[in-house]
C-alpha cells in the first residue's frame, strides 16, 4: 500500500525544483551540477533544461569518474552531453588511480579517495561555490534531515547540528571565505515520483535501469554484474546470466541488481509502487559503518 504519485503533486515538485535552480543561477557566483549519470541526475538535467529554456543550461555539469562505473553509464554520459551541447567536466582522482585502488579490495578507502576526496579536489580546482546534487530525503535517514541549501565549510564538511534554518522559499546563499553550498532540488521527491516523472516527461535513462539478461555473480546476498574483466571472482563464485535491473547505479562491483521483468519505464514504475525494500539495500557501500554510515560520510564531504 505504498501508493502512487499524483499528477498535481508531480507538477508541484517540478515547479519547486525549477524555482530552486533559478535561485542558484541568480544568486551564486559559480554553480555546477553534479551529474552522476543515474536516474536522479537525468531528471535534474531535464528540469535544468526546462528552467532556463530557451537559453542553454547556464552552468557546467561535472561527473566524478571513479573509472569503475558501468560501461553503459560512461557511453550514455558522453552521448547525452554531446546531443545536448552541454559543458561537461569529467574529473578523476589521478593520485588514487595511480595507486590502483580497487572498489572490492579497498572498500571504504576506495570510496573515500575516489569519490569523496575526488569531489573535494574537483570543487576546489574549479572554485565552484554551489553544487547541485540529486539527493532525495526519502533515500536515507540522515538525508531526510538535510536542508535543500546545505552549507559546507572550506574543508567541504557538513555540520548537521548547525544547519541554517530554511524558511518558506527564502534560501540563504550568503557564503564566507572558502564556504560553498550543496543544493538538492529533488529533496522532496521520492523514488516513485522520479519514475512517475520519467514516464510523464519521457526522459531517457541509462538502459541498466531496465531488466535484461546480464552476466552476474552472487556475492554477499547481492547480485553483482560482471561488467568487464577487471572483476576478480572470489572462490566459489560462478558467472551466470540472469534477467536483472538496477534501482541505483554506481561503481559496478559495488552495485547490487534485482531480478525483474520490468523492461521499460512503465513497468519499473509499477514495480516501484509495490516495492518491499528501500532502494538503498542494493548499495553495498551503505552497510559498512552501521546505522550512521551515510551521516558520517556526508560530514566528511560525501555528497
Amino acid at each position, binding site marked *: *500500500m*505504498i*501508493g502512487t*504519485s*499524483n*499528477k*498535481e*503533486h508531480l*507538477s*508541484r515538485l*517540478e*515547479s519547486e525544483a*525549477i*524555482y530552486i535552480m*533559478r*535561485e542558484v543561477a*541568480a544568486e551564486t557566483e559559480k554553480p555546477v551540477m553534479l551529474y552522476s549519470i543515474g536516474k536522479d541526475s537525468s531528471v535534474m538535467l531535464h528540469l535544468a*533544461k*526546462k*528552467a*532556463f*529554456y*530557451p*537559453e542553454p543550461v547556464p552552468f557546467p555539469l561535472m561527473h566524478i569518474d571513479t573509472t569503475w562505473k558501468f560501461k553503459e553509464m560512461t557511453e550514455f554520459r558522453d552521448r547525452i552531453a554531446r546531443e545536448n551541447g552541454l559543458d561537461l567536466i569529467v574529473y578523476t582522482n589521478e593520485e588514487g588511480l595511480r595507486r590502483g585502488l580497487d572498489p572490492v579490495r579497498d572498500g571504504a578507502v576506495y570510496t573515500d579517495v575516489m569519490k569523496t576526496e575526488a569531489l573535494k579536489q574537483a570543487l576546489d580546482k574549479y572554485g565552484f561555490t554551489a553544487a547541485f546534487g540529486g539527493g532525495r*530525503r*526519502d533515500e*536515507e*535517514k*540522515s*538525508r*531526510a*534531515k538535510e536542508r535543500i541549501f546545505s552549507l559546507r565549510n572550506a574543508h567541504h564538511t557538513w555540520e*548537521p*547540528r548547525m*544547519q*541554517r*534554518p*530554511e*524558511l*518558506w*522559499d*527564502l534560501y*540563504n546563499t*550568503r*557564503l*564566507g571565505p572558502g*564556504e560553498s553550498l550543496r543544493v538538492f532540488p529533488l*529533496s*522532496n521527491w*521520492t523514488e*516513485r515520483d522520479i519514475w512517475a516523472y520519467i514516464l510523464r516527461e519521457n526522459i531517457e535513462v541509462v538502459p541498466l535501469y531496465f531488466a535484461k539478461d546480464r552476466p552476474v555473480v552472487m556475492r554477499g546476498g547481492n547480485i553483482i554484474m560482471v561488467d568487464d574483466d577487471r572483476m576478480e571472482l572470489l572462490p566459489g563464485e560462478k558467472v551466470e546470466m540472469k534477467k536483472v535491473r538496477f534501482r541505483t547505479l554506481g561503481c559496478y562491483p559495488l552495485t547490487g541488481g534485482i531480478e525483474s521483468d520490468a523492461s521499460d519505464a512503465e513497468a519499473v514504475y509499477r514495480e516501484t509502487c509495490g516495492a*518491499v*525494500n*528501500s532502494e*538503498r*539495500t542494493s548499495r553495498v557501500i551503505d552497510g559498512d559503518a552501521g*546505522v*550512521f554510515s551515510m*551521516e*558520517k560520510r556526508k560530514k566528511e564531504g560525501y555528497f
Partner: protein
Amino acid sequence: MADFLRFMTCGSVDDGKSTLIGHLLYDAKMLFADQERALELESMSSDAQGERDYSLLLDGLSAEREQGITIDVAYRYFATEKRSFIVADTPGHEEYTRNMAVAASESELAVLLIDAVRGVRVQTKRHLRICRMMGIKKYVFAVNKMDAAGYSEDVFRGIESELRELTSEMERVRIETIPLSALKGDNVTLRSENMPWYCGPTLLDYLEDVQVEASDEEGFVMPVQRVNRFDGKRGLQGNVSSGEIRMGDEIVIYPGEACATVDAVNVSGENADEAAKGQAVTICLSEDLDISRGYVLAKDTELKCTDMLEAKLLWMDEEALAEGRTYLLKLATQCVNVSILKIKYGIDPDSGKHLAVKKVGKNGLACVDLSCHEDLVFDSFDKHRAMGRFILIDKVSGNTAGCGTVKFALRRAENLKRQEHDITREARAKALSQTPMTLWFTGLSGSGKSVLANELEKIMASRGMHTMLLDGDNVRLGINRDLGFNDYDRTENIRRVAEIAKLMNDAGIIVLTAFISPFEEDRETAKRIIGGDSFAEIYVSTPLEECERRDVKGLYSKARAGEIPNFTGIGSPYEIPKNPDVVIDTTEGDAAEMAEMLFGELKERFELK
C-alpha cells in the same frame, strides 16, 4: 480535492511526535521491509527493551539517538489511495525551536501533540504561536498517551476546553481535536475500541479528507527571480505566488508602477496561454522595460513600496537582536540592508502578553519596526504571503538570524514628505560661494584625527571658507550625552552625527568630523545619509603602536589594564576603510604640514570653492 498535503507534527518534548509518525507509517504499511527489519533490530538494542520504538524511524542523526531527542526536522513521504503526504517531524526542545519553525513555514497543517497526562504546556503554546505566525490555518490537536490516562473522557474534555480557550482569538482557522495513543495505535489509523465515547475521525482519516482551501490572496503577483535573454527578448522568470495570468493581460511592475502587456507565457519550459499560482513561468512583455531580479509583477492588486514596516519576528540566532543593528533582509527575490529601528514589544510564549524588552534572545518572539536602507516592494503577510515574509541574515556570520512576517507598512514613511523650500541647498551654497561637503575623518583613538581636522579647518577658514568641526568628545558631551559605548549606542552616535553633518551641508557649510567610526557599516550609513557626492572619507592610518605610544588621553593604558572594555584597537576591532578618498599617516610629518598636504589633495579631488 488536492491530491497532496504537507503537514507537520509539533508539541513539547516527549509528547510522542516521532512515535506518532513512526506508528502511522508502520500501521499503514508504508515502510519498506528492510526499514521494518532495521526497526526491529534497533529497537532490541535501544532502551525500548524489545518493544517496537517507532521514533527510531525518524531520528536520523547520531546525536539524536545518543541523546534520545529530536534535534532537526525529519521529512517522511508516504501516499495512500487518496493523497500523497509530506510530513515533517519536528523537535520539541525549546533549544531547537528554530528547526520546528522551518517545518511550520512549509506546512499547510500542523498536528500539535498534547500529552493527556501532563496537559497543555508552555512549549505547546509556543509552538502554536509560531505555527500561527508562519501562516498555518489548519490544526489537529492530537491528545496523545490516552492509554496512560485510562482512556478517560473527562481528561480529554478537560484538555479540549483548555484548548478552546487558547484558540478562541484565532480567526479563520480550522481545528480538530482527536484523542489517541501513538504507542498503542488508538485512533491513529484504526478506530479505538477503548474510547467508544469519541465519534470523530481517526488521525489518518482526517488527514486524508481535510480540505485545503484555495488561497484567498488578491490578484496576480510574481516576484522576478532572473531575466532570461533570447532572440533579443527578455524573459522574466519566477514562480507565480498568487493568482493567474494570461496572454494579453495588463500588468503593473513594482517598483515604479510602470504598466505593460503580457506578450508570452511559458510554464515549466513549455509555451502556454496562461499560468497560475505555484507554477514556474517565464513571461515576456510587449514593452521593453529595464526589469531585473527583485522586481515584482502584479495585476488586480496593489503592493506597498516604501522603506519602513512593522513586523512580527522569530529570532533564531545565538546573538540577541537589539535596536540599531543592521542585517540583510531577504523578501521574495529582494535583498536589502535593514536596521532594527525599534523593538516595540516581546511576546511571552506562554500567555501571549506583550513584554517591554531591550533585546530578543534565541527563540524569542517580538514585534519590531524595521527601516530598510532602500525602498522595498512588499505587502502584509495576511494579504500576500510571499510578499509579506522575510528572513534576516547576519552579515558577518552569514547565518539566517531571524524570520518574520509583515504586519503593515509604517505610515510614517509614507506620510512624512520632505518639505521643499524656496531657498535651496544650492542657493545657500552659492551665497557662501563654496561647495558644501563633509570631510569624514576616521582612524584609531590617538591617530591624530582631531588635531589634523583642527589644522585643516584653520587653513580653510583662512581662505574664507565657512566650516564646522564636529568632534567625538564634544558631541558626546552635548547632543549625544544620552549614548554609551555598546554596539547600538555607537551606531546611533554615528547616525546622529551624519544627520547633523547633512543639515549643516544643506545650510551651505563644509563639515569636518573626527570620530573613530571603526565599523565599515556605520561609515557606509553616514555616507548614505550625507550623500555619496558630498562625502569624503579621510583615513588617518597612524599605526596602533604609534597611537598607543602617544596615548594622549591615557586611554590605551586604561584599556590594557582592562578598565575600558570594547576599546577600539584593544578589545574591539577597527575595520580599515576599503576605498578611502584620502589616506594620511601622521607619523610622516608635523600636523600643520600634513594638513597643508591634505588641503592640496582635497582641492585637487573636490571642488571646494
